[in-house]
């Protein structure tokens, strides 16, 4: 191996192991910030030693042992540690925990790390950055590029998040009992936010943004493996698998958005759809599971005409009862218009207009325009498309809406 390829190998090993190392070391030093520094030290040691001495037989174990030893040394150096403790304001057990022998213990460590990084005491952006950094193994630079922000901003978020955890004295544990559901919801939300950031990225020049979808999927898959008994974790995983299966067809050759009805379904990724269906079997009846079931109806329809709109409308009905929102209601109206016809859906959309909650949401006039066009009311439909065009911030969508409006111009007397 050349030095360069050894360095690459070291970094690959580190990426694979870093979350577990940080998780195990945090158990010893009780602070994710210090644990991350120690993990980085172990990486530096490997980069220095392996090119000379060769890559060890069990490189992951080498890194883990090196990091653990450093952590134990740190704890033993009372003086230094007392100072560190003063910084983090925490008391410590006398002896470091034993090396986990059982893989389940390692899983448990990793879960603690995930629950800690996604702790509700943190601001949302702090949770996202910390999770991607500690669990996803992304560099600060990668996170900054993916979120279209500067590296110092992300670094600052991570520092603040680590401080907030230390200050709040968040215990390093997997929550059980009453607050587990809320804590798990916080983890699921972080993964969902990461996915959406990548999914809605229309600035497609930078592949790091769409790559966030993959990072989120990996986190979701990891989570379902760690908490197999949590239906909503499977629901989120299924939702993301289905969404990701359509990535290749969501935009046309010039980056313009392609509507679901017009997407080339033969190019949807069958493997991801199959994984989505499998995850859906283990999902439940929570909001992510319901959204996954809806996405599954679309993903498993071979042709657009085969879509089971009645099932989708019913699922949106359940979702509206569980987590009511104007956007869910709008989607329910669309599904009803497809299942029963535009006249059944128009009153629902008109009620939303009267409510005023989606006043600046371009999809509301866009959907209303579509219903009016199908009901043979082109003058009103055209006005709605033009209103929608004035509301959207996406140039491609604006073109699409203005094209639809212009097409109706010929039909107006």
């Amino acid at each position, binding site marked *: 191996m050349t030095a360069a390829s050894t360095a690459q*190998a070291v970094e*690959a090993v580190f990426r694979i192991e870093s979350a577990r190392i940080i998780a195990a070391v945090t158990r010893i030093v009780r602070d994710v910030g210090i644990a991350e520094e120690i993990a980085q030290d172990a990486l530096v040691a490997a980069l220095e030693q392996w090119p000379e001495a060769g890559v060890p037989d069990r490189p992951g174990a080498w890194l883990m042992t090196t990091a653990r030893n450093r952590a134990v040394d740190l704890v033993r150096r009372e003086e230094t540690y007392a100072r560190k403790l003063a910084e983090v304001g925490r008391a410590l057990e006398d002896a470091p925990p034993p090396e986990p022998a059982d*893989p389940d213990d390692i899983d448990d460590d990793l879960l603690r790390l995930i629950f800690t990084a996604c702790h509700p005491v943190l601001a949302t952006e702090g949770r996202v950055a910390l999770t991607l950094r500690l669990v996803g193994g992304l560099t600060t630079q990668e996170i900054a590029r993916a979120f279209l922000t500067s590296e110092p901003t992300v670094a600052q978020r991570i520092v603040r998040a680590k401080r907030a955890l230390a200050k709040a004295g968040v215990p390093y544990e997997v929550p059980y009992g009453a607050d587990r559901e809320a804590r798990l919801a916080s983890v699921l939300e972080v993964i969902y936010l990461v996915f959406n950031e990548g999914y809605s990225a229309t600035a497609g020049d930078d592949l790091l943004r769409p790559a966030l979808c*993959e*990072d989120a*999927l990996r*986190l*979701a*898959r990891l989570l379902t493996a760690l908490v197999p008994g949590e239906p909503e974790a499977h629901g989120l995983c299924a939702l993301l698998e289905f969404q990701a299966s359509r990535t290749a067809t969501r935009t046309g050759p010039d980056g313009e958005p392609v509507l679901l009805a017009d997407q080339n379904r033969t190019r949807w990724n069958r493997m991801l759809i199959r*994984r989505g269906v499998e995850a859906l079997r283990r999902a439940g009846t929570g909001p992510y599971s319901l959204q996954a079931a809806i996405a599954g109806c679309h993903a498993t329809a071979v042709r657009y005409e085969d879509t089971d709109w009645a099932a989708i409308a019913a699922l949106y009905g359940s979702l509206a009862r569980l987590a009511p929102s104007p956007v869910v209601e709008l989607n329910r109206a669309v599904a009803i218009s497809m299942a029963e016809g535009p006249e059944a859906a128009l009153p629902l959309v008109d009620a939303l207009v009267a409510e005023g909650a989606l006043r600046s949401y371009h999809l509301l006039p866009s959907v209303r325009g579509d219903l009016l066009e199908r009901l043979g009311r082109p003058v009103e439909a055209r006005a709605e498309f033009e209103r929608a065009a004035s509301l959207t911030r996406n140039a491609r969508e604006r073109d699409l809406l203005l094209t639809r409006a212009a097409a109706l111009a010929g039909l107006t007397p």
Partner: protein
Amino acid sequence: MPRFMTLIRIDERNLPPETFPPDFEQRVGALLEEMTKAGVMLDTAGLRPTAEGTRITWSGGRSSFTDGPFTETKEVVGGYALLQCKDKAEAVEWTRRFLETHPESWHVGAEVRQVDGG
């Protein structure tokens, strides 16, 4: 995060004994579980011997069929794993770990190839 197809290559004329060492299955099982838990393993399977396979060739406007075994080929694909990794170095590292679960006396190869557009 690209996908990689790892093709496991074996020499069918030189197969290891039918009986696996007692801890082999357990070692492979533990690694596959670890890869699944890391969110890396998308799909993996071993393939039936080439004796049960058929090769189909489209050439000169005609299809021709050859039933296995394919004894003229030194190494044939004996299994595959579809991995989702950050880069090729990570895929290579996981593949190395997979090969190293096998007994020292065995000869097993693997070819790591990135999935195009995936």
